[in-house]
C-alpha cells in the first residue's frame, strides 16, 4: 500500500464524517482534530518501504504518469501541517467558526499533502491552487461578507501558479541545454515572481491586511500557518535541487532585498494601525520578511531561524484567532455601531474579556519576536546573523518589533479604558463571573499563553527538530 495514499484519503474520509456529524459539534471537532493529530503523528513515525501492522508500505505511488513520494524531508513539514491544523480544529470548538471550517480544512490538508508529495515538485503549484480555491470558502461567509480579501488571495495564488508552472517548463528546457544563460535567467525571473506572489511579498501583499481584517479569525490563522508551510518548503526545495539557483549570488540578493523590504513596509504600515485585524496583516508582512531574510543568508543557521519562525508562528496565530473571535463577538454583542475590529469598538472590553484581550496582545508580540515570547528565540538568532552580514535589515526587523509593541500598547490602553457611558465594573466580581461562565475557554487561553511563554524561555524543546529539517535543505551538494 502506498504511504502517500494514507495522507490523501484519510483526511478526505474524515471530512465526509465531519460534514455528516456537523450538528454534533463535539463529535465533529473530535473527529477533525483527532484525525489530523493522528496523521501528524504518523507522518513522523510511519516506517517506509517495509511492513508495518501487516501492511507493506511503499514510499511512492504513481498515478497518471506522476509520482507521489513521501520522502524523509517531507516528514516534519507534513507533521507540522497536520498538528497545527489539529490545534486550530480544537480551537474551533470554543468559538463559532465558519461552517465549512472543519470539513474543508480537512480537504485542504489532503491537497497540501499532495503538494508536498508530487514529483516533479513544480506541479505542487496546481495542488496549492486547488487548496486556495477551497480556502476561499473559509475566508468569507454569510457573517463575513467582505469578499475583497478572499478574491485577492485567490487571484494572487492563481497568478503564482502560472509563473511556477512556466518555471517548471523552463527547468526542463535547461536540462536539455544547460549552457543557455538566457533560459537560466528566465527561469530565475519567473521563479522569483511566482514565489513573490504566492508568499505575499510586496507589491503582491494587498490581500494580507484585508483578509486579516475581514475574514473569520480562525480561518485567517489557518491560511497564514497551515497553508504557508508547503509554499516555503517548496522554495527551499527549489534552492536545494538546482545548484545553479542556490549558488547564484543574485538569488541571495533578491531574497535579502525582498525580506528587508517586507520588514520595512510591515514596520511602517503597522505603526499607524488602530485595528488588531489589520495590524496582524502587517505583522505577517514582517514575519514573511524575517523568513526570507533567513533563507537569503544561505546558511544552516539562517535556514534554522526561518524554519523556527515558521514553526512557532502557528501557536501565536491560533491564540490570536481564538482571542479575536471572542473579542469580535463581545464587540458585536455590545451593539456599538462602529467597525467591530477598531480599538474604539473594543474600549473597555479587556475588563469583560481579560483572557481574550491578553491572549491577542501576547500573540501579536510573539509574532513580532518580542523578548520572553515564543517568537523571540528564532528572531534573536536571525538578528545575530543579520547584524554581521546585513545590519540594515536587522534594523528594519527591530523597527518592526518596536512598531508592533507600540500598537499593542495602544490597543491595550483601549481595551482597559472603559467607555464614559458604561457603568463602572467591579473587577473582582466581573472576573469571578467570567471564570465561572467560561471554564473551558479559560483553560485553552491559559494553555496557549503558557506555551507561548514557555517556548520563549525554553526554545531548546523545539530547536532540534527544526535543525533536523533545516539540515535536509542545506545538505552538501554532490
Amino acid at each position, binding site marked *: 500500500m502506498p504511504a502517500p495514499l494514507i495522507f490523501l484519503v484519510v483526511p478526505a474520509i474524515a471530512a465526509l464524517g465531519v460534514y455528516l456529524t456537523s450538528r454534533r459539534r463535539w463529535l465533529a471537532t473530535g473527529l477533525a482534530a483527532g484525525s489530523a493529530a493522528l496523521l501528524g503523528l504518523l507522518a513522523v513515525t510511519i516506517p517506509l518501504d517495509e511492513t508495518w501492522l501487516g501492511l507493506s508500505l511503499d514510499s511512492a505511488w504513481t*498515478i*497518471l*504518469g*506522476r509520482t507521489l513520494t513521501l520522502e524523509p524531508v517531507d516528514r516534519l513539514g507534513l507533521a507540522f501541517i497536520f498538528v497545527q491544523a489539529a490545534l486550530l480544529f480544537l480551537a474551533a470548538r470554543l468559538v463559532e467558526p465558519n461552517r465549512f471550517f472543519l470539513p474543508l480544512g480537512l480537504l485542504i490538508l489532503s491537497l497540501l499533502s499532495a503538494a508536498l508529495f508530487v514529483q516533479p515538485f513544480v*506541479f505542487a503549484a*496546481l*495542488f496549492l*491552487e*486547488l487548496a486556495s*480555491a*477551497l480556502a*476561499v*470558502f473559509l475566508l*468569507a*461567509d*454569510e*457573517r463575513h*461578507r467582505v*469578499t*475583497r480579501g*478572499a*478574491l485577492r488571495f*485567490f*487571484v494572487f495564488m*492563481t*497568478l503564482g*501558479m*502560472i509563473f511556477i*508552472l*512556466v518555471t*517548471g*517548463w523552463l527547468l526542463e528546457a535547461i536540462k536539455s541545454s544547460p549552457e543557455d544563460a538566457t533560459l537560466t535567467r528566465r527561469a530565475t525571473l519567473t521563479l522569483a515572481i511566482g514565489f513573490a506572489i504566492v508568499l505575499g511579498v510586496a507589491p503582491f501583499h494587498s490581500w494580507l491586511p484585508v483578509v486579516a481584517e475581514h475574514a473569520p479569525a480562525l480561518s485567517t490563522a489557518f491560511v497564514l500557518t497551515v497553508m504557508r508551510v508547503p509554499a516555503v518548503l517548496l522554495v527551499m526545495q527549489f534552492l536545494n535541487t538546482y545548484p545553479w539557483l542556490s549558488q547564484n549570488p543574485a538569488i541571495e540578493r533578491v531574497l535579502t532585498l525582498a525580506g528587508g523590504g517586507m520588514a520595512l513596509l510591515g514596520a511602517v504600515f503597522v505603526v499607524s494601525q488602530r485595528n488588531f485585524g489589520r495590524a496582524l496583516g502587517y505583522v505577517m508582512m514582517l514575519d514573511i520578511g524575517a523568513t526570507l531574510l533567513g533563507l537569503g543568508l544561505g546558511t544552516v543557521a539562517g535556514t534554522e531561524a526561518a524554519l523556527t519562525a515558521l514553526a512557532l508562528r502557528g501557536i501565536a496565530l491560533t491564540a490570536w484567532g481564538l482571542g479575536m473571535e471572542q473579542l469580535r463577538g463581545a464587540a458585536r454583542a455590545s451593539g456599538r455601531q462602529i467597525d467591530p475590529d477598531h480599538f474604539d469598538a473594543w474600549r473597555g472590553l479587556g475588563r469583560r474579556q481579560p483572557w481574550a484581550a491578553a491572549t491577542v496582545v501576547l500573540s501579536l508580540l510573539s509574532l513580532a519576536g518580542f523578548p520572553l515570547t515564543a517568537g523571540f528565540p528564532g528572531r534573536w538568532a536571525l538578528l545575530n546573523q543579520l547584524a554581521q552580514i546585513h545590519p540594515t535589515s536587522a534594523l528594519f526587523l527591530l523597527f518592526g518589533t518596536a512598531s508592533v509593541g507600540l500598537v499593542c500598547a495602544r490597543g491595550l490602553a483601549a481595551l482597559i479604558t472603559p467607555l464614559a457611558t458604561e457603568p463602572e465594573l467591579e473587577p473582582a466580581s466581573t472576573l469571578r463571573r467570567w471564570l465561572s461562565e467560561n471554564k473551558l475557554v479559560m483553560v485553552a487561553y491559559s494553555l496557549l499563553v503558557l506555551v507561548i511563554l514557555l517556548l520563549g524561555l525554553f526554545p531548546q524543546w523545539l530547536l532540534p527538530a527544526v535543525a533536523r529539517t533545516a539540515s535536509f535543505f542545506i545538505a552538501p551538494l554532490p
Partner: protein
Amino acid sequence: MLTSLTAPALLGLFMATALLVALTDWRLNLAALAGLFACAAILLAQITLWQVVAVRLLVGLLIVVILALTGRATQFGLALSPCFATTRFTIPTGFPFRVMALTLVSLAAWYTANQPALALPGLSSDLNLASYLLMGLGLLNLGLSEEPLNAGVGLFMLLGGFQLFYFAIEPSLAIVGLLAAVELGVALVVSYLATLWYMPAEESA
C-alpha cells in the same frame, strides 16, 4: 480544415474578450464567455489531441452553466443596481475608459506576439497572438473590477491564454485533468463569492 477556421476563431475570440472587458452586464457576458470557450477550443485543436479539446469544451460548458445558475439566483446582479426594474442592457459608467484600455492592451498584445524574442514556443503566430491577448485582457479585467463575477471572468481569460500556451509544451493528461479541476474550482469560487456579494443585507445576519 481547422487551419481555415483559425482566422474566424481568432476574430471571434477577440470580439468575445472585448465584450467581456467593455461591458459588465452578466447576461451578455455569459454569452460572450461561452463564445470565448468555443473559439479557444477551435484554436487549441491545432496543437493538441481532440480528447483534450473535448474536455476543455465540457469544462467551459460546465463553467457557463454554474455562472448562469448563480446569475439567476442573484438576479444577474441587478438587485444592487440603481435601475433594478429595467431589463434593458445598460452601458457601464466607465465605458470610454474600458474601451481605451482594451485598445491599448490589445495593441500591446499584438506587438508582443510579433516580437521574435518574446514569441511563445510551440505556437503559430495566430496562437501566440490569441494567448497574449487573453492573458493581457484577463489581467486588465482583474484590475478593473473587484466584483466577483467580472473579476472571475478575468481569471478565466487569464487561464485560457495560459492553457493555449501550456498545452503546447506540456501535453500530459494529468496536467490537463488538474487544470480542468482548477478551472472548475475557479467557477465555484466565483459563484460563491458572487452569491455573498449580492446577498441582501437582511440575510447576512
